């Protein structure tokens, strides 16, 4: 009887401990890699156009930014994407003109010279009052060396087209 009671008490203790074990594992897997991962060094250029409906496209050829007009289809609404330079040190971005971006030396690879890459998605957030759906804004992550970090700056500016298209790393 006493053994059975001890078994059940251990079962209750293990039940309470198990969620904390998972939380500890989650914390360790997120924060431990940050201790040895190098700090990202390279800024990057992106534009806020969507996959479709952008009036122009941007490419990096031989380290330089190239702008190309899209062949327009009648009846389709096109938006002019805005260019941005993301400062990795301050986790913020600022809008730049095409001429300013063209003066930068860019690397159009997905992976930066120090081993990081950019991944993006779309977030849809509702508010409690019931107007579910919200207004989508881009979710942008910097990933590499077993670390993933959400980038916060400047993706939901008021006059932004709410898209995110990575163009290239600034290699100066």
């Amino acid at each position, binding site marked *: 009887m006493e053994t059975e009671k001890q078994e059940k008490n251990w079962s209750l203790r293990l*039940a309470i401990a198990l969620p904390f074990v998972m939380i500890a594992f989650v914390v360790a897997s997120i924060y431990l890699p940050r201790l040895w991962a190098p700090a990202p060094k390279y800024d990057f250029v992106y534009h806020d156009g969507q996959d479709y409906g952008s009036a122009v496209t941007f490419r990096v050829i031989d380290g330089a930014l190239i702008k190309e007009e899209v062949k327009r289809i009648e009846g389709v609404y096109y938006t002019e994407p805005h260019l941005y330079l993301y400062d990795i040190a301050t986790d913020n971005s600022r809008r730049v003109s095409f001429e300013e971006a063209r003066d930068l030396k860019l690397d159009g690879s997905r992976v930066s010279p120090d081993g990081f890459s950019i991944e993006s998605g779309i977030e849809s957030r509702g508010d409690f009052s019931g107007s579910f759906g919200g207004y989508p804004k881009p979710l942008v992550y910097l990933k590499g060396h077993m670390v*993933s970090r959400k980038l916060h700056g400047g993706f939901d500016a008021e006059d932004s087209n709410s898209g995110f298209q990575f163009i290239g790393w600034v290699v100066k």
Partner: protein
Amino acid sequence: MNKEELLQAVTHASKEKQVTRDEVVQAYDAGLESKLAPTEGHRFGIAEILYYLGGGIVVLGIGILISDNWEDLSSFTRIFSTLGSGLVAYVVGVLLSKQEGRGEWGQAFHLIAACVLPIGLFVVLDEMNVDTSSYGVMSLVYISLLGLYLFSYRMFQKALFMLASIVFGSLLFVSGTDWLADGTALFDTGDFVSYQFLVMGLTYLLLGYGFVGKAESALTKYLYVFGLFFSLGSALALGGWSPEQNWFWEIIFPGLALGTIFLSLPLQSRSFLILGSIFLIAYILKITGEYFTDSLGWPFALVVAGLALIGVGALFVRLNNRYKGIS
């Protein structure tokens, strides 16, 4: 034997270690109609079902009334009608539970409080322009409610408070781990949700086992059912689908399902037998559809699956025959 003699006899038996505290509590609870019976075999009567149904309909009514007129309500009215209703229901539940013969009415009001209080807290935060959809805010709400119901359980020793604690504890666990992992590669994997439910499922099973023979044993059956759904369902989902399957989970899952079936004997739980069998059948169908339809042809795959299901059925009947009279 008068009350003094009875209490002295209990004291003497306790000193001689002839009875344990749990046995004394069980004997006491068995004599009361207003508390849940301390055995796994507790059955809800028609009256109890109606009380809880009534409580659920009250919550539904409040919800519809408030949501239909939400835009016309002031901040104070919104808070008063939600958080205020929840607090009033909680207090009424406490008062009714103290009265002999009205315990179930109290339970119904506690159910109303448990449903309405979280809504009320979110309304308060929303009126303060706090982002109620963030994981951190949700965690704050759930930890507050967990604290309230753990305190209530400690004070009043009702199984319903333990149930509410488990529910809010689970919500806190999900929102808390989402908050920690948000923005990381870990969170982006679809497996993260499966692991959350796996841990919750195992926790429920351990709690269910730990409650056997205690005052909360009425919750054991439900904890087993939800625990098995979450844990076996997660393990099955973690196996993935070819060509992106996870070999570890696909190989160990039949062991988990069979282990669940055989655990039904020592645990004396038909839930383990039934759900273990259902998930084993689901696994057989999954594997058949995943690996055999292209290579061996659909008809042959169906024959293999059918034979396997017959085997599972035979095992089920054999074990079930040993369970006559056990719930």
